[in-house]
């Protein structure tokens, strides 16, 4: 399959009065056409910033993309003019935000918000845009779409609004959708519905999907590939199968152990990741995870590990990945 998006050594920094925050510190990954890639990690590890960097939506000041390349369909997005970038946003790459309650403009009708995009990017006239909007709302499972078009966002529940956001994202047949924690604000039953919907529609329309999440269940079920981020870097990357069942980085392992599992006894104690994420203004050249790591050795302090491929399609940045594997096998 062809590479749709290539992120190469992306670095995004925020220049604050407290110092330079290296929110994204040299991440590299690809997304192929029609593929679902998950980006996981705890709050503040740079997941959202990396996504916003792709769309060039980092608020400047204080933020800026200071290095790296983002190539979309072979074209470097950083070289595009603002005008051209606008034709990429919404048309080629769409985004679904975390908060469905506040991602729709409260004073505009649902219909207006969807048709506005269609008119802007696809040059449809009013009737065509309306017809397409009805079709889209039907597709995302909203009943009685004709009537919904005339309603305002406050008429809809959170789940319905997220469906509208997905309809909006899909409206111009984009190649890639970036979903930034699309289900975090929804309750559990609705989460599953929304994820199923996104999965089905992206399959059906052959749209690639980047899901940013801290929900490992989402990863296991919906993603083809997973990038685990910590302190602005990708520390492990592989197929969902590999990462979920054969984690090779202590952080990934700790993440997996910190969520309850249905296949373990109910009384088993949860094992949260100890300590706090590091201050992103004070990173040294060692491994950022070492203060919280059970496997840390002296080398971790002096020398940060780099991503190395340990088997086909599975990369990890840890000096101790073999020891981790042994520990897992003996356990």
């Amino acid at each position: 399959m062809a590479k749709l998006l290539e992120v190469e050594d992306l670095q995004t920094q925020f220049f604050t009065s407290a110092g330079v925050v290296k929110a994204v510190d040299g991440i590299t990954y690809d997304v192929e056409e029609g593929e679902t890639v998950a980006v996981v990690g705890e709050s503040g590890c740079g997941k959202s910033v990396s996504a916003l960097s792709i769309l060039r939506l980092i608020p400047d000041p204080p933020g800026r993309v200071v290095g790296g390349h983002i190539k979309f369909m072979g074209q470097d997005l950083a070289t595009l003019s603002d005008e051209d970038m606008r034709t990429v946003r919404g048309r080629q790459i769409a985004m679904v935000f975390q908060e469905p309650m506040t991602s729709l403009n409260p004073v505009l009708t649902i219909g207006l918000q969807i048709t506005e995009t269609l008119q802007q990017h696809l040059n449809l006239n009013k009737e065509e845009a309306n017809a397409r909007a009805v079709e889209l709302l039907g597709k995302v499972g909203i009943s009685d779409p004709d009537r919904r078009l005339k309603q305002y966002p406050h008429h809809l529940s959170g789940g319905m609004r997220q469906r509208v956001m997905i309809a909006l994202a899909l409206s111009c047949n984009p190649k890639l959708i970036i979903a930034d924690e699309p289900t975090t604000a929804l309750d559990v039953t609705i989460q599953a519905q929304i994820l199923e919907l996104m999965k089905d529609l992206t399959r059906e329309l052959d749209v690639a999907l980047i899901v940013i999440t801290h929900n490992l269940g989402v990863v296991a079920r919906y993603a083809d590939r997973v990038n685990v981020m910590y302190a602005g870097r990708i520390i492990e990357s592989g197929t969902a199968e590999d990462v979920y069942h054969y984690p090779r980085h202590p952080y990934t392992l700790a993440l997996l152990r910190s969520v309850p599992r249905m296949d373990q006894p109910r009384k088993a104690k949860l094992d949260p990741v100890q300590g706090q994420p590091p201050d992103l203004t004070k990173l040294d050249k060692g491994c950022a995870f070492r203060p919280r790591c059970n496997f840390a050795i002296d080398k971790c302090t002096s020398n940060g590990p780099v991503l190395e491929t340990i088997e086909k399609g599975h990369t990890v940045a840890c000096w101790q990945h073999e020891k981790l594997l042994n520990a897992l096998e003996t356990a």
Partner: protein
Amino acid sequence: MAVTTEAELEELATKASWYDKLKVFMRQQPLGAIGGGIVLLMVLMALFADFLAPYDPELNAFEFMLVAPSWEFILGTDQFGRDLLSRIVYGARTALFVGFTSAFIGSFIGLVLGVGSAYFGGKIDLIFQRVMDIFMAFPLIIMALAVVAIFGTGIQNVIIAITIPFIPRCARVVRSTALSIREIPYIDAARALGYSHIRIILRHMVPNVMAPFLIMITAFVGQAILLEASLSYLGLGVQEPTPAWGLMLQGGAEEYAESAPWVAVWPGVAISLAVFGFNLFGDAIRDVLDPRLRSQ
């Protein structure tokens, strides 16, 4: 009728006619309704001045100088024998024309600048707000005086003089509301959908600052009427023989305060009522538009 579906409920909600809504408004905001009535009266006076005024407002009639209020001249006449009622009716036209034009132009420019400043933020916002600070440092009347001193008198210049000090006042209020809206995700969402800055400002942000904006316009109209009267009174606004309330006050206030008080009293009453009416109306609109007060 038993309401069964959401659609029916909605129909019920939209069925309430403007007449019903007006009744509700009058019941909840009696003072506002009075203010609205005064505003309406003024607008009607201005629109139908040609039919309502019994005499030509600019006609000098020396045989009827300083006639006290009577059946022939309901509000009396001034020192040139001009009918005061006619002059007040036509004066409403001048007052409203200046009031509405300057309030609307000033607040519209302020709206766009304020929202734009909040949207772009950073250095643009900083520089822009400091310029506004400079303008705000002058009291309204001093600023207007300065403009008239530069451009000269006359109705257009009066409008300019009143408009300019309104711009920063509106921009300031609108900006503060827009700043909070700027941080709500739907603005980021709009950017992620590829809309241009202008489109986001006008289509997505401006409608969201409408509530404070509308309240401000009503307050501005009242202030503008007062300002126009003040400028005219000082001889820097509308010039004789155009009927204008401030001008009427100037002509009659000192000389005839004792011998013919009606010359000064009626235009004074007209000015006060107009400002009072617009302020009451504006307050009521604020209460209606503010959802926090609505439920109480």
